């Protein structure tokens, strides 16, 4: 379990990093290393060069404002999770991040790295999709914004071009009258979920006007299902779009069952959250 030989570069500027990446087709970006290093050690990946972005300046930020939370490429999961302001602007971040691995891994692993790694069993890619966020990427060719809906190409495959570095993710704020919830079932605490479900619900005067659900570990890419018109049986609507599969930890049937168990619970939690927030806002407005 030792990596095959690779060249190692730790650039001090983004320009240098982008140039190196563009010049070396076999190169890979190294962020927190929590996914990439195990792949290297098991020789499942053998890049010719690692471009370590940990020394790049100005990428460690977690910046909440009224529109949402901006997360730099070097912000660790732990850092995002610890930001009370970020949780205020978009509560789903902390709800989901507390299920991402364990504290030691969250101390190194980056949220942006997790998005680019594009694991359908990971929480944050699904969260980005559910919230309709985006990722900003840069290359020697310039900067572009990739909407979450266009980020995930397949299992462990994002749509980033080889020469692109993701520099920042944007998670939109939770609008007034909206609520979120998240639950997952894993074999052990901190493991990748057998099934995870998140809900984003918008309400008006207590009535649900829009309801969307995001799923972890029951598809090849993060899946979001709009159940606004299927509130009587949201799980059935979701299952029509999901592809639960067998693995050594659970059967497809059990995963489908968990979708049925968790979906109404999470949806109800989100509706409750939305109503609670509306009530708090009304109280504030009255005062």
């Amino acid at each position, binding site marked *: 379990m030792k990596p095959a030989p690779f060249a190692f570069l730790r650039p001090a500027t983004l320009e240098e990093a982008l140039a190196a990446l563009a010049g070396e087709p076999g190169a890979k970006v190294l962020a927190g290393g929590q996914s990439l290093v195990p792949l290297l050690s098991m020789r499942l990946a053998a890049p010719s060069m690692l471009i370590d972005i940990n020394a790049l300046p100005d990428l460690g930020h977690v910046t909440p404002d009224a529109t949402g939370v901006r997360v730099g490429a070097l912000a660790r999961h732990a850092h995002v999770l610890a930001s009370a302001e970020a949780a205020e602007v978009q509560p789903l971040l902390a709800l989901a991040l507390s299920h991402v691995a364990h504290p030691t891994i969250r101390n190194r692993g980056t949220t942006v790295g997790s998005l680019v790694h594009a694991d359908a069993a990971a929480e944050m890619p699904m969260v980005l999709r559910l919230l309709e966020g985006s990722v900003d990427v840069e290359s020697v060719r310039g900067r572009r914004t990739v909407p979450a809906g266009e980020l995930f190409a397949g299992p462990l495959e994002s749509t980033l071009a080889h020469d692109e570095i993701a520099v920042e993710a944007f998670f939109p704020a939770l609008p007034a009258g909206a609520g979120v919830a998240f639950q997952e079932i894993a074999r052990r605490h901190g493991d990748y979920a057998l099934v995870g479900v998140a809900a984003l619900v918008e309400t008006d005067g207590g009535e649900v006007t829009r309801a969307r659900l995001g799923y972890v570990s029951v598809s090849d890419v993060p899946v979001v299902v709009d159940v606004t018109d299927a509130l009587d049986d949201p799980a059935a609507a979701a299952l029509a779009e999901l592809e639960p599969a067998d693995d050594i930890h*659970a059967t497809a049937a059990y995963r489908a069952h968990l979708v049925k168990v968790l979906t109404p619970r999470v949806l109800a939690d989100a509706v409750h959250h939305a109503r609670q927030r509306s009530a708090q806002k009304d109280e504030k407005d009255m005062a």
Partner: protein
Amino acid sequence: MTTKLFGTKVPRVEDQRFLRGQGRYVDDLLTDDPRLLHAAVLRSPHAHARITDIDVSGVLDLDGVVAVWTFDDLTGPMAEPLPLLIPHPALTHGRTQYALAKDEVNYVGEAIAFVVAVDRYVAEDAVARIRVDYEQLEPVVGIAAARAAARLVHDDVPGNVGARMEQENGDARAAIADAPHTLTLELDVERSACTPMEGRGTVARWDPDTSRLTVWSSTQTSTGVRGCVAAKLGLDLAKVDVITPDVGGGFGVKINHPWPEELLVPLAAMTLGRPVKFTEDRREHFISSAHERAQVHHVEVGFDDDGRVLGLNVEFWHDHGAYTPYGLIVPIITSTQLLGPYKPQNYRVVFESLYTNTVIVTPYRGAGRPQGCFVMERTMDAIAAYLGKDRTEVRSTNFIQPDEFPYEHGLVFQDGRPLTYDSGDYPASLAKLKELVGWDEFEDFRAEMAAQGRRVGIGLACYVEGTGVGPYEGAHVHVETSGKVKVATGLTTQGQGHQTAFAQIVADTLGVRFEDVEITTGDTRKMPYAVGTFASRAAVMSGSAIHLAALRAREKALRIAAEALEAAEDDLEIVDGVVSVKGTDASIDLGTVAVLSNPLRYAFDEASKAATQFSVGDPGKAPVAEDDEPGLEGKDFYSPERSTFANGMHAVIVETDPDTAEITILKYAVVHDCGHLINPMIVEGQIHGGVAQGVGGALYERMAYDESGQLLNASFMDFLMPYVTEVPTTIDIDHLETPSPLNPLGIKGAGEAGVIPSAAVFAAAIEDAEGFPITAMPISPSELFDLRLAHADNSFAG
């Protein structure tokens, strides 16, 4: 001694070192030596294949590669199969692998080539360049395939049967036929493994100046490794030293020896004249060390209206993997220890030990007992369910009673001796357990939880564990002139706290300060005769030997001190390293006694000067008397007639989620009887660790082989060892101390106990919660969900 240390919770002295990262494990050794080389192994990617060609030509020209070995490079004993350590007449078709595969591979992970390079990275690069041509053969995976024998693992082993063994006491089949009630059960246990934190590892250095080989290995038997290295490399035993440094856990897997690397590393070190290191990585540990536990059992039991077992007939099939280096120990233990605290009137057991194209099976903590306990306790629960009786009542009816010891089962145990229990008080243990877990109040709790929509269940399981198997262990106690006491015993230590527990014994027996005692284990230079650390034997065997050796040192100290102090031996006492005449000021330090014990008296130190005031010895005689030796030392061996039998009972309350089928532990209770406790804290630590490992075995861990013999979960990502979050936060423990009459300290082994009843106790509790039988372990939520569906269908149909 002012206070007795035996029996007190002395904090483990080794923890300071371990918790601060100051342990020295095999991989930490010789790291500063620039000449050190590193090894990596090419392992078979196929479960069953013939090797038609190996091409290493692309390897040696790789920068940094020093040497490569394949089978063709081995000569003499190294080119013969590895030893079959424990032969048995019933093992008619024993097979062992070669250090490097010859012509054929029989499991994914089997060693094929051995590369030595300047570092492990280069060595792995080289491994990746070796080209092997395979002719693939159909693999045999799992007990069903092995029994079907449509394909054979070894061409010359018909039916894939390595051994068939039968034992009977009475006439079980006749008793069952005549019994008022009978039941039949099919019970399965899957594969798991020890998975110690530290994998295997070996370092060897050949010293051309002294023509000596030093081998450091992460083993549970340094004397065993020494013997096989000498034999395989053709060296005189006196030329080989084997040292076991700190070991990061063993749990059984490191008692098997020699591993191919344990021979290849010394061979490479001698051949190349440079030290060589092999450190197994985690993937290798999964696919090339050992597993255990996979067995399928068929049980027939006959019993009366009280639930008294009149006849028990057990047939089982044991999956021993591709080879049998460790003989039949695991299934023999299942077949004998299955009986637990009970006395079936008639018992027959027959097993077949089967070859499969999977990793070899050797003992894993519990060693066949968890399966046996699962079989017996599931049977007890089935009888209780059938008769509508309380599960504890059926057990009580079948217990061996306290006045029936020593109890003869009429069977032969793993050590080849009659299976005879020495002592125990099972009714008292059960009473304690019921109290501890709240057995009689459980129905109220169940109702209370049901009212909240929650589902709970309770289970219990009892076991008896033969511990402290022979043949012997020895100890050497040496009092230095400083008064410090150096103790050597030959078995190894892998985290059990031997430094602490053994020093407690020495402090009490010899009358010295605990802090002055230093224990050395597993170093063949200090104690060349030893067996090893397995079968919960270290405290019983080495503990007793150390006690006996310390008594000898004490005897000698008293003899010399009596002469020096001009007093009678009977009037002397030794407290905190000082010998004094009781009730007077006259005294002499043990260190000074040590000076007096050696007629060569150059005054190096204060003790020597202090000694000048005393005079011992008869100037008319030889300085060292005929039957005496210089030095204040004691050496002795302990070799018991037979094993001593510890016992215990566990109970667990679980909650099963009616929706998600998740299983949560609400309460875990243990009553444990290992005779006199040397250090209750260490014993409880052993129980905690065992329970944690048992939770893993019952609810999380399994070896997921696919049909082609690939292990799908060969990493800690997919092999679900429980985290601290999955293990009960508290384990309620109560002790009973029924001393063993077989050793001077009245102790029994405690190392494996915690893990033995796990599968049984969790199955019982889940069954109790769910209301349908649990017959296969481990069990995951997904499987519990499947069972619910199956039983819902059944009840619908019925």
